[in-house]
């Protein structure tokens, strides 16, 4: 029995249950839901959306927020596509270029947050418009169409059955993040700073280095998401990232991330992404007005944060009496 209660109390149990229930309901109404074609569509969406969510999750872990996730993703995407079309760089080098740009943009966010001592919200709002402006200034809102065939092929190829190649990088990232946040001091420092910055500092953690590291990782992941999206779409659209903001918060929050920092879960966030993807997909299957997706996403966020809040306050209540 104790192993069962431990199971129930893990952070991913709730999202997993919600996930299974959602799948069961939708499947019972619409048997095509779990068809191979549909699963492939789901996985393709997952591959990119999970990275977007992780990019925000790592910032939530330090108790901040990053509004510029989409702008960084968009900038990296056009850097990737542009480097191939305009400079004729081979795809791997172009991808590296995009990733470096993402990393640098993220690190710059972190540095600015640290130096100014201002809320990350305002800083990333400012950099959001800087990065987005640079993106539009370079492209003049025109897409790069010269994406090589190999890249497009990677975007649509499957490893086996319905599993596309696109999920491979995402899976690697998930494992890496999980390992870092669970086992490596860097990851523990990130969570410690989010949990109690003062205590972490007293224990010798460099807050500045940790904050910059987290933001750099966030930028890197956003860039990777942008690059994968270019591969999937086959074009380097400047508008990539414009609609990531809600998405990036929805999954970590559904996965029970504590917004004040110190508690995030890679597995639960991943399940959050799955839940969002399933519901979006279900709307299409049931031919519900796609405009309602936004409403449902917003409602999900509200429901999840309220639920987390309840859970957290019960937890604190128990702890207070102890």
């Amino acid at each position: 029995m104790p192993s069962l209660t431990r199971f129930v109390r893990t952070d991913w149990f709730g999202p997993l249950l919600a996930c299974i229930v959602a799948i069961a309901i939708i499947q019972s109404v619409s048997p095509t839901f779990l068809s191979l074609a549909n699963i492939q569509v789901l996985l393709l969406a997952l591959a990119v959306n999970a990275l977007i969510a992780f990019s925000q999750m790592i910032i939530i872990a330090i108790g901040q927020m990053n509004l510029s996730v989409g702008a960084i993703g968009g900038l990296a995407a056009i850097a990737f596509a542009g480097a191939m079309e305009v400079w004729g760089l081979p795809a791997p080098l172009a991808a590296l270029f995009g990733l470096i740009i993402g990393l640098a943009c993220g690190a710059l966010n972190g540095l600015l947050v640290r130096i100014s001592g201002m809320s990350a919200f305002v800083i990333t709002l400012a950099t959001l418009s800087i990065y987005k402006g640079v993106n539009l200034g370079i492209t003049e809102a025109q897409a790069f169409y010269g994406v090589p065939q190999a890249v497009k092929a990677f975007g649509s190829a499957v490893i086996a059955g319905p599993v596309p190649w696109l999920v491979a990088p995402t899976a690697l990232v998930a494992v890496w993040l999980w390992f870092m946040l669970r086992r490596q001091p860097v990851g523990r420092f990130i969570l410690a700073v989010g949990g109690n910055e003062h205590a972490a500092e007293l224990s010798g953690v460099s807050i500045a280095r940790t904050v910059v590291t987290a933001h750099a990782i966030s930028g890197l992941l956003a860039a990777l998401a942008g690059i994968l999206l270019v591969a999937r779409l086959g074009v380097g659209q400047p508008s990539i990232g414009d609609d990531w903001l809600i998405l990036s918060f929805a999954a970590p929050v559904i996965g029970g991330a504590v917004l004040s920092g110190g508690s995030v879960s890679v597995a639960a966030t991943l399940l959050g992404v799955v839940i969002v993807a399933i519901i979006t997909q279900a709307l299409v299957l049931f031919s519900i007005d796609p405009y309602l997706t936004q409403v449902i996403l917003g409602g999900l966020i509200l429901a999840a944060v309220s639920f987390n809040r309840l859970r957290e306050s019960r937890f604190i209540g128990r702890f207070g009496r102890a």
Partner: protein
Amino acid sequence: MNGEAIFEARDIVKTFPGVKALGGVGLSLMPGSIHALLGENGAGKSTLIKVVTGVHRPTSGELRLDGRSVDFGNPRDAIAAGIGVVHQERNLIPRFSVAENIHFESFGANRFKPIDYRRLNESAAEWLRMLDLDIDPAMSVTELSTARMQLVEIAKALSQKSRVLLLDEPTASLTSGETDTLFEILRRLRDNGTSLVFVSHKLEEVEALCDRVTVLRDGQNACESQSAEGLTRKDYVRLMIGRAESGSGWRKRDTRAAPQVLGLDDVASGLGHSGVGLSVRAGEIVGLYGLVGAGRTELARVILGQEPVTQGTVRIDGEAVRVADVSEAIHRYRLGYVSEDRKGEGLILQHSVLANAGVPIWRKLAGRFGFLSDATVRAAVLPYLTRLEVKTPSLDQTTANLSGGNQQKISVAKWLAAGVRLLIVDEPTVGIDIKTKAYLHDLLRELADGGTAILLISSDMPEIVALADRIVVMDAFRTKGSIENDGDYTTMSEKIMTRIQDRTPSGTSSGIGETARCA
């Protein structure tokens, strides 16, 4: 003085915006000694410890380790130099395991090397065992009680094997059993040559444990690093407050004829109170004494309508009432509350003196549609600020920049301006200098003489005995009857302690009986 000091602080000055916390303080620590650091609340003990351990940079002054001048840019430097500390506030990483918290510093060595949690747990278990702590090292610290968190932090400090170990009020939340274990360990450390600094308000502990002593008063040395031999409790008190424990200023006041302003009868609350009986008459000062955690501040919240009364009756002016919220308590029933948490709850530090003093009467002063000018507020509050001799360059000064004593005067003045009938004062003199403290005591008596009913919550027994006409004892969210105060500290403290230790529920019924009599 035998031997060389291992660590010295010379002429340390530390200023915060608007406050000079330390004004040229010295401290010198010998190896193999336990050094008491004494002083009243706000004397600067914690600030000195934070300067020594690299949390704060001193504004001026010098730190010397092994005779060499050192400069700690941050806590890491101090830890690396072998200086460990357990701060007054808890500093654990929430949701992390006990073992991880204990060994957190050691992670810095290689940021990418995977953490071996098994080894971590084993090694943490050893340190926990040393403190006789029966805690699973893999457990999350968030599930621990405050006392146990404190002990985990001590284990953490011990695990760093520091040469100098500073403990800021480590026994404040420990039971006597836990304290004894801790003392044993501290003595053992001392015998092994560690230099310890021990801060406590419990002078018995200091007498039992310490061999050297430094006393701070208002950010200055009242005595610097001298041997504790020959010093008694009386000497410590004299050094801490700058004079002998003086006459309390208590005087007999008879208010038996006055009408009751507040009456609680067998009250229970959502916060866990039960069987609370209490009565305060106009012009009477009733002391509410209890240990920290007895439920006194919480009772104030219940009276003010912030928490619901689940049972029993609350009477104001003899009429049973149900106070809906704090706003109603203030504006309709004219109750006032001077919070123990002056900076968090008593004042809006970011706002001006004028704004702070006026909040409770804005509504009363406002004209039609809520219009209100500064001049109106100024005219209403200035007499009270003047009467309390609030020292400020102007009424537009931000309250954050005033001294603790002046801040407290403002938080009292605002209730005078509001003309409250019952004032609940919660730990009114914590962190306040001696002169202002005496002044506030006089003021409270004067207020009561003017007819205001006063409910005084305080953990400072001398303060309660000096001020109260009657003392109601509270323990574990129940009242345990009331005692007429005769102003004599020795007999009163004995009576109070007997009440608290009396675990029979009869205390409750006597409390109710008392209320019924005066109602």
